[in-house]
Structures are given as C-alpha cells and as structure tokens.
C-alpha cells in the first residue's frame, strides 16, 4: 500500500521545470571536458550543473569561506535510503595545495564516474544507499585561483592569507595547519616558506571549515581521503615517526589492496606506507587529524607522476591518472562499506554475477512485488 502512495506522491511532484533543468544540467555535464584543467569559475559552474542534472543523487553545500571570502563547496553523492537507517559517510577532498592541479581534476572525474555508472552498477547503487560521499573538488580556492593568474604563480602551494605582522610573505600550508600534533615536525614557522604551518592549529579558515564540518559527522564517517600530487604514494597516518595508528596493519593491507588494483589499470606503481617511512615526517595534516578524531580509515593519495613533469602534469595524462585513482579510491570505499554493513554481497564494483545470493534476493523480491501488487511500471 505504502509503495502506491509513495509512487503517486513522487510522480505528482515532478513538474516540467524540474525536468527542463535536469535536461539542461545533463547537457552541460556531457559537454564538460574532464580531460582538461578548468579554472575555478568553470568548476563552480560545473558543480551547479552536475547537481541540477542529478537531483536524486547529488546535492551541494557551502561549508565555509576561504581567507579571501570565497565559497568552499562540496557535492554530496548519495541515494535515498528509504529504510531510514543511518547513512555512513565517506569524505574526499582535493586541492588543499594549489599547484596540484591533477587533484581537483580527479575529484571532478570521480563525480562524473559515479554519475555515469551508479544506475547500471548494482554494487555502486547499493553502496550509495548506505553511504553519502562528500566530495570537495577544491578546498584551497584562493590558492587555486592564484595559480591560474599568470606564468609566475603556477607553482604556488599555500593559501593566500595575508602576511603576518613582521613579514611580506603570503599564505599558510593548509596541510600543516590541522589540529594534529600541530607544529611538532616537518613544518616551518617562517611565513615565507612553503611548509609554514600558520600561527596556530586551525588558524586558517579553510582548515577550520573542514574540521568543523567533518567534526559534526565524525561518528558516521568511515573513511577520509585527501587527494594530492605528486609521487604516486598512498600515505597512511601518522606523519609523526613515533606515533602509530591502532589499526596500522589494516590500514596497510587496505592501502596495498588499492595499490594492486591501481597497477592493473595502467601498470603504475603506487607505494603504500606512512609519511615518515616513504616520504618525510610531518604534522598538522588533514589525514592525521581525521585519524586522530576517530575516523578509522584515513589516506593521502599522491597521484601522478614521479618527477618527469611533477605538478605540471600534461592534460593527456589526466585520463589515465584519474582512471587508476578512481579504482584505488573505490577499492577503499568498497572495503569500508562492506566492513560497516557486513552485507552478503559478494559482487564487487566491477563485476555483477547473477549467481550471488544477494542478487537473487533482489530479483525474486521484484518478481514477488509485481505478482502481489500488480503495480504496473
């Protein structure tokens, strides 16, 4: 009975304006070139289009403002969960460091892939009913815009906060500003340097916005992914050489499983380890903050390449870099989802086997509903 009423309610609420808006958004989305780098105004517009085109999957939220007053915007990907059980959260952010252009490119790619496959990929559709994936394509908006200004600004890393009183140098390394052993190692207190950690933990609005927003959802958050370049690394907490996460072994094995999947795509090696092992010690990173407040899985992805082009990754590398990163991210998301929901699905995101018991349940239920209600589709 309920399904009849629900169906009727939904049908009457779909008006022509919404349909037109959806069509417009879809067209825009299809014309968007995911294999090119986009300036910030195009990314803001793309976020509007993608939300408009997929109202049942995507909503947006502004959860903070940059130093220069710009919106920090995320897209929330998730499907209606009519069972009413509490949805778990996956967090993904890109572009904490302004010059790492492949990272925002990947966040956009990720959203596009989900949009294009969730209706046909049963596993993905199921996960989106249990999870909300929060994607921030660009956190350091001011810095990103600055890197587009001219040839001499392209390699800027930090935010664009004003110099402190005794200095002429702008910006804070946002990935050293989080409340996680702030200021202890792998940082500079010189505002002219690229690892300047700011005047205090969380002093920067961009970092504080993430901590405030994710802080309200910490109990539901399964996984925190922060996307950077370059180096082809999967970093696990902590950045401090003498502190280990309690689930270190599991973090390593899940990371290594992701790296194995990534290598299958284009043969690229991604090294897995803590930052002090495979890169350098550091403190105040968003990854460390997430693990410290209790989010069990927290990773920094360092995408392509290993030094040939570095941060100036050519546009014809965007697609392969994003294809492998997508597989890696999804591997981790699938793992944490399956762990949290302990469901009977044996299907992976890539494969759909009719033989699985879970799938048989779906189909037999659909048939049963058809037979009992006579509801015509």
């Amino acid at each position: 009975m309920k399904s009849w009423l629900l169906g009727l309610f939904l049908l009457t609420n779909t008006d022509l304006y919404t349909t037109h808006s959806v069509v417009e958004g879809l067209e825009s989305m299809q014309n968007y070139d995911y294999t090119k780098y986009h300036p910030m105004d195009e990314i803001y517009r793309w976020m509007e289009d993608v939300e408009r085109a997929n109202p049942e999957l995507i909503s947006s939220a502004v959860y903070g403002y940059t130093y220069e007053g710009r919106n920090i915007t995320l897209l929330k990907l998730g499907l209606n969960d009519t069972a009413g059980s509490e949805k778990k959260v996956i967090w993904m952010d890109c572009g904490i460091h302004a010059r790492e252009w492949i990272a925002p490119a990947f966040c956009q790619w990720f959203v596009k892939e989900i949009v294009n496959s969730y209706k046909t990929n049963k596993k993905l559709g199921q996960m989106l009913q249990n999870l909300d994936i929060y994607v921030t394509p660009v956190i350091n908006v001011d810095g990103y815009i600055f890197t587009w200004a001219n040839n001499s600004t392209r390699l800027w890393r930090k935010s664009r906060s004003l110099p402190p009183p005794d200095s002429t140098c702008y910006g804070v390394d946002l990935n050293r500003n989080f409340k996680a052993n702030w200021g202890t190692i792998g940082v500079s207190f010189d505002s002219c340097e690229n690892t300047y950690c700011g005047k205090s933990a969380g002093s920067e609005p961009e970092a504080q916005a993430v901590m405030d927003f994710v802080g309200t959802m910490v109990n539901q958050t399964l996984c925190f992914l922060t996307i950077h370049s370059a180096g082809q690394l999967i970093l696990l907490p902590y950045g401090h050489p003498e502190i280990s996460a309690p689930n270190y072994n599991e973090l390593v094995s899940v990371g290594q499983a992701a790296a194995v999947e990534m290598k299958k795509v284009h043969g690229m090696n991604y090294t897995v380890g803590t930052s002090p092992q495979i890169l350098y010690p550091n403190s105040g990173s968003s990854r460390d903050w997430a693990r410290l407040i209790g989010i069990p899985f927290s990773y920094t992805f360092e995408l392509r390449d290993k030094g040939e082009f570095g941060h100036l990754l050519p546009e014809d590398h965007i697609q392969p870099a994003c294809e492998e990163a997508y597989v890696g991210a999804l591997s981790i998301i699938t793992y944490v989802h399956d762990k949290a929901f302990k469901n009977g699905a044996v299907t992976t995101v890539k494969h759909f086997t009719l033989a699985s018991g879970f799938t048989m349940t779906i189909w037999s239920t659909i048939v049963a509903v058809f037979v009992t209600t006579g509801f015509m589709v």
Partner: protein
Amino acid sequence: MGLRIIVVLAVLMGVTGSPTTTVRPETTSVDTAAHPNSIPEMAEETGQNEVFSEEEAAEDVMATGELNPNHYPAQRAAKVVQHYLTTRYGSPYRLFGLHRVHSGNAEDVGDSGRKYQLEISVHEIISNTTQKCSAEVFFPHGQKQESPQVQASCEELLNISTKAQEEALYQQYKMNQTLLSAQNLPDSHGHIEPDMKLLWHLGIVASSFIMLKESSENTLYNMAQVANITQLETEKEQLKFNCHTLLHDMVSQEILHWKLLFAWSPAEGVKVLQMEQLPHCQHCEKPPNTN
C-alpha cells in the same frame, strides 16, 4: 519511478539478510578522549599499539644497514644516481628517470659521511627502456654543504646510440638564422610545443648538474620547469645557452630558482660553465585583483 521503489524495497530486504562475508576481528579502537592537539602518549592509545620501531625517521638519526627499498633514505640516494647519470650521459635524446629501487644498504664512513650501496632500475625516457644499475652514493658530512659523490655501472646504458640524431640537431642549431628561445617548458597545462621539446631536454640535462651538486640525504630534487632558455652565439664549436630553471625539492616543498650558462656538443655532452642561485622573491608576487 515505480521500479525504483521496488528495487529499493528489494535491496533493503536483501541487506537485512544474513551476511556471508567474514567479520574481521580487529576493532578500530581509537582514543577519542585525547585532545586532538596533544601529542598522544603511547599509553593513552587504547588497544593495539604498533610502534614501528624498525626505523626511527627522526631527522638526525638516519637508517644504516640494510634499507627498505621503498623508504625514503634509499629513494633519496637513488634519485641522486638519476641526476648523476643524466649529467654524464644525458642529451636531448637521452634522459633518465628512477624506475625502482631493488635493494639498498647504508653505512657510516667514520665521521666523514655515509655511503649508500644501491641496486636500482633506471628508465630511459626517450627510448622507453628500463635497465638495472649498481651504484654507490657517498654523502659527505661536513660543516659546509658538499656534493655527493656517485659511482654507477649500468649494464647497457649506451646500447641505444643517439649520436646521429644528436649530430643532426647540433648542426641544425648551429646553422640557426635566429637564435632559439623558449619560455615555460612545460607551460601551466603541462604542454610543450613539439619543436621545443629538445630544448627542454637540454635544460633538464643542464639542471641535473645543479640537482646533483645540491643533493643531500635531506633533499629530493626534481625538475619543476625550464622558465627560460635562450641560445647564445656558438663559441668554439660549442652551442651555448642561458637558462633559468626551477627545481622542486620534495622535502622542503620549495621551488628553487637557478640561472645557468651551459654548453653542448655531441662530442663533449653538456657542460655547465656558470651557475647561480636566484633569491626567492616573495614580495615580487603581487596578488591579482580579486573579483
């Protein structure tokens, strides 16, 4: 619309079925009571403490003995070998990248420094071939920053001959009516005009001399960009170039600006004649008008 509701209902019924996946025994016990801003003491962290005691990566205690090839000490030493090979054998048609570190060993040489022995694979970028090398890198520990010393032997490094191509390019550049000049290689989008690629390669080889000279156990240098490269008048059969290069040090995350004067000929390879580090001019970057 209706089918969607049915599928949702069906999915829900499936989800509440019995699980077939094994439940992993590890609990993610986390100490959320610790104030996020403190350095958590080992005793406060509940449950399993996995202190990774294999290497203390504190900055003044570097690993010795057998090294984990994926960890940064071996990786940084191997990168130095890449720069060395580029200075010795690099040309517009031969460039090296570090492919893999297979094994590494480090030992202190009294107080004078530390010596690394490495088995690595290097990737010759232009022919897209990979080959193994054995190398030794010695980092001197002195008051003054001194360059590392490298010895390397690679099985078939020069197997693919580039002499003919180099000679042709050399003649072409020598005969230029107008002297070549290029900026921003690669540009902001990672793009390089096809006829500027070889100039970019020359800039990389020349920059490798600086990267080699400046390397230590606390750096990891890569090319960031050739900001400007300009051909000068040929002198004594050597092509000459002025170059403004940007280097990236992964460890400090800084971009270092250097100016170079270098010569090239197929016979002599690249030779750096002058090099000078430029100050990092912070206040030169005026923020654009915000809109």
